[in-house]
C-alpha cells in the first residue's frame, strides 16, 4: 500500500526532514506486546463490553480509580480475568501513545490505518478514533503529557490511624495520630504524621476546595465535575 511504499522510499533516500513519511507508527518502532495481545482478543469481544472498558480506560487516564467498577464489569460480562488484564493494558498503552507529545501531528486517517494494520476490527477503530480525536482530546492530551508543564501527580495514597496506648513517658495516653504515605508520579514517596488538629484543618480545607469548585461551576457553567 501507499503508506509502506513511502516509508520504504524514505529509508533509501534519507529524507530526515520528512516527518510525514509514516516510517514509524505512533506506537513506536516495536509494537508494545500488550497492544498486540489486546488486538488478538478484540475479534470475539462483545462490543458493548468493549465500549464500557474503553470508558474506564479513559477515566483512568484522567486519574479516576476504576478498579472496582472494572472488576464488576468483568463479572457481569463473564470475562476471564486474564482477558481483562490484557484488554486494559493494551487499550491504555494504545491511547497513551496516541495522545503523547510526539503524536501531535498524528492524523485521524493515519491513526485508523495503523490500527487496521494491527487487525483491529473496523467498528472498534472508530470508537478508538473518537476518543483520540474527539471533544475530550484537549484534556486527555494534557494529562498524558506529564512531566512537562505539570507538577507530579499522586500515584498512590495510603493512610493509617494509630492509637498510642502508652509510652515510656506517658502511661495510658491513648493518643490518636494519622499517618500518611504519598507516592508521586515522579517516583518519590513521602511518609509523614498528621497531628489530629492539622488533620481537621486539612479536612476543612478540602471541603472548602469542593465548595469553591461548585461555586465556580455555577459562575461559569464550566462543568468541572462529572
Amino acid at each position, binding site marked *: 500500500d501507499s503508506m509502506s511504499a513511502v516509508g520504504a522510499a524514505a529509508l533509501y533516500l534519507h529524507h530526515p526532514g520528512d516527518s510525514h513519511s509514516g516510517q514509524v507508527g505512533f506506537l513506536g518502532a516495536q509494537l508494545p506486546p500488550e497492544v498486540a495481545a489486546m488486538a488478538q482478543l478484540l475479534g470475539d469481544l462483545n462490543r458493548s463490553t468493549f465500549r464500557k472498558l474503553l470508558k474506564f480506560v479513559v477515566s483512568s487516564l484522567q486519574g479516576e480509580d476504576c478498579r472496582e467498577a472494572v472488576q464488576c464489569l468483568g463479572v457481569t460480562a463473564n470475562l476471564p480475568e486474564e482477558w481483562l488484564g490484557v484488554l486494559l493494558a493494551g487499550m491504555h498503552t494504545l491511547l497513551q501513545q496516541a495522545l503523547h507529545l510526539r503524536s501531535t501531528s498524528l492524523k485521524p486517517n493515519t491513526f485508523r490505518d495503523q490500527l487496521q494494520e494491527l487487525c483491529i476490527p473496523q467498528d472498534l477503530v472508530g470508537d478508538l478514533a473518537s476518543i483520540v480525536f474527539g471533544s475530550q482530546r*484537549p484534556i486527555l492530551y*494534557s494529562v498524558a503529557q506529564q512531566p512537562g508543564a505539570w507538577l507530579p*501527580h499522586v500515584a498512590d*495514597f*495510603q493512610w493509617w490511624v494509630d492509637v498510642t496506648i502508652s509510652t515510656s513517658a506517658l502511661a495510658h495516653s491513648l493518643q490518636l495520630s494519622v499517618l500518611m504515605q*504519598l507516592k508521586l508520579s515522579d517516583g518519590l514517596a513521602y511518609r*509523614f504524621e498528621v497531628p489530629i488538629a492539622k*488533620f481537621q484543618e486539612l479536612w476543612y480545607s478540602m471541603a472548602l476546595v469542593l465548595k469553591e469548585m461548585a461555586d465556580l461551576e455555577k459562575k461559569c457553567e464550566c462543568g468541572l465535575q462529572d
Partner: protein
Amino acid sequence: MEACSEPPLDAKSEVTNQLVDFQWKLGMAVSSDTCRSLKYPYVAVMLKVADHSGQVKTKCFEMTIPQFQNFYRQFKEIAAVIETV
C-alpha cells in the same frame, strides 16, 4: 488508592516527619504550548513537612478533579475512623 493494604513495620518509629502546612490552589489551564485551547481544571497542593530536626521540606503536586474527589473520599474515611476510635 487503597487504604490500609498492609500496616508498615514499625511505622511509628520510622515516621518522624510531621505535616505542618497544607496550601491548595484550584486552577484551570486554558492554554499550553502543546495544546492551544484547553479547559483543564486541576487542584495543586503544596505540603510542608518538618523532619525531627525541625527542617521544613516542601512537596508540590497536582491532581485532576476525579483524583481530588477520590483523595477527599479517603479523608472522609479517615475522619470517620477518628470519630469512632
